[in-house]
């Protein structure tokens, strides 16, 4: 078996896999977990912090848990296994005029299990928030191989925990009626206009996305070398409709990999309050750090070259000084462990001890 592809995710970190197992049913997950000493759980492998990179462990790849189960059209819920790819779910729901509204840029390949484990946010965060908000319940296999259903009160032990507390195998998701969307690409002259317009757009009744591109990123996409905003609306407000709308959204999904091609392989995801964004974006501009991001919710994606570790640490200090969070959506994984607040770390350690006392799952991640 060629293990190399399972020793990476999208974070550029290389790990070491002992073995890869592909359970085809939840029953198989239970027996694998009960008999394996150390497990790294893998979904679509789209993580940018190394959350699915193994540390000499057995890789439990959930890709084959792909059943889409009971759809309740009246209550607008659907039951799905962890390995279902988001776009496959959307394609299934289209026939029923329903959709799952959380939309990370990796929607074509990310799995529902991975989205719940990292509490994926994505570009429509301003309207729909994070994945956990849309999970009615989840089913989790614990370190002994027992399965349990977790409702709203217990779910926080598993969502956003990046797989260190158990294997999410199934979920019941809330849905919304399928939306007809349009978008606009708006060039702005400077940071002041960018932030002012962002605030105005946020108060628009049909807004569902406000994304920011800096001058460097805009130029790389073939746009004018200016700041740009991409605004998405759930009505006919946007100028780009149908195919033009899809083209614009596809362009936005390609921003990350395009900057990687320019050598900016490292991506960060700090989150700041709106009134601190000007200071932060000005600092990035002075340091010539390219960026884009979900400006409506204060998540910015600055990009760095691999030899710019010191600059990343410097940026994290700026983020903390401005009262921001070091990770707004990509998770901690391996890459951001050193930036976790000691108090937060203690809370996570306590949850880990309670849910996975044998330290079986995703060792070496977050804490």
């Amino acid at each position: 078996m060629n293990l190399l592809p399972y020793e990476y995710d999208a974070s550029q970190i290389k790990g070491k896999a002992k073995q890869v197992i592909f359970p085809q049913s939840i029953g198989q997950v239970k027996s694998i977990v009960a008999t394996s000493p150390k497990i790294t759980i893998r979904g679509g492998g789209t993580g940018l912090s190394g959350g699915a990179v193994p540390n000499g462990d057995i890789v439990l790849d959930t890709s084959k848990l792909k059943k889409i189960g009971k759809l309740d059209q009246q209550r607008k819920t659907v039951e799905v296994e962890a390995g279902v790819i988001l776009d496959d779910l959307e394609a299934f729901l289209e026939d029923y005029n329903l959709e799952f509204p959380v939309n990370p840029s990796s929607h074509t390949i990310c799995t529902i299990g991975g989205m719940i484990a990292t509490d994926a946010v994505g570009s429509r965060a301003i309207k729909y928030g994070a994945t956990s908000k849309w999970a009615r319940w989840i089913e989790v296999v614990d370190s002994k191989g027992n399965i349990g259903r977790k409702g709203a009160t217990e779910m926080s032990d598993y969502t956003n925990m990046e797989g260190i507390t158990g294997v999410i195998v199934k979920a019941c998701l809330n849905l919304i009626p399928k939306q007809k969307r349009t978008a606009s690409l708006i060039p702005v002259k400077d940071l002041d206009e960018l932030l002012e317009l962002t605030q105005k757009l946020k108060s628009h009744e049909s807004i569902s996305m406000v994304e920011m591109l800096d001058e460097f990123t805009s130029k790389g996409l073939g746009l004018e070398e200016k700041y740009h905003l991409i605004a998405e609306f759930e009505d006919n407000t946007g100028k780009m409709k149908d195919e033009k709308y899809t083209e614009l959204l596809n362009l936005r999904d390609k921003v990350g990999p395009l900057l990687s091609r320019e050598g900016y392989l490292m991506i960060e995801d700090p989150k700041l309050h709106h009134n601190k964004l000007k200071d932060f974006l000005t600092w990035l501009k002075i340091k010539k750090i390219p960026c884009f991001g979900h400006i409506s919710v204060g998540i910015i994606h600055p990009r760095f070259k691999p030899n710019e570790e010191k600059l990343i640490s410097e940026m994290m200090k700026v983020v903390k000084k401005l009262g921001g969070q070091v990770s707004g959506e990509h998770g901690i994984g391996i890459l951001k462990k050193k930036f976790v607040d000691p108090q937060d770390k203690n809370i996570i350690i306590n949850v880990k001890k309670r849910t996975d006392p044998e330290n079986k799952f995703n060792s070496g991640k977050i804490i």
Partner: protein
Amino acid sequence: MKEKPTKQEKIQANNLIEEVTEILGPCVKCGMCKSNCPVFKTIREESISPRGHSISLLNKKLEESLFDCTLCKSCERNCPLGIKICDSITKAREALSLKKKNTKQNEEMLKNLEETGNPFGNNPPKGEELFCC
């Protein structure tokens, strides 16, 4: 006894592997290439996905699974960096062939073609057994 590659064939194969790593060099492992890959969509294993091939080839590991690719170029359409993944897979297959590491099925097909002009030999499957994706 299994045929061994000549010195010339080894050099050609190594040159091809260099070309493959050059083509795949810009790959950032984002995985977008998997989006519509018919092989990955069916089998759901990273090792037979375009990203899986890319990771293996960049580590100069040439696997038999390279022959699982349909060369449909769906990965190339989805690659944000425009990497010619199928070109690299074709070259890697050629390198495997030069290294005399062809699959049994390929060797049989080549032999059949040489001997009968038909990839299936003298007993081709009946019409109803042939299908196209």
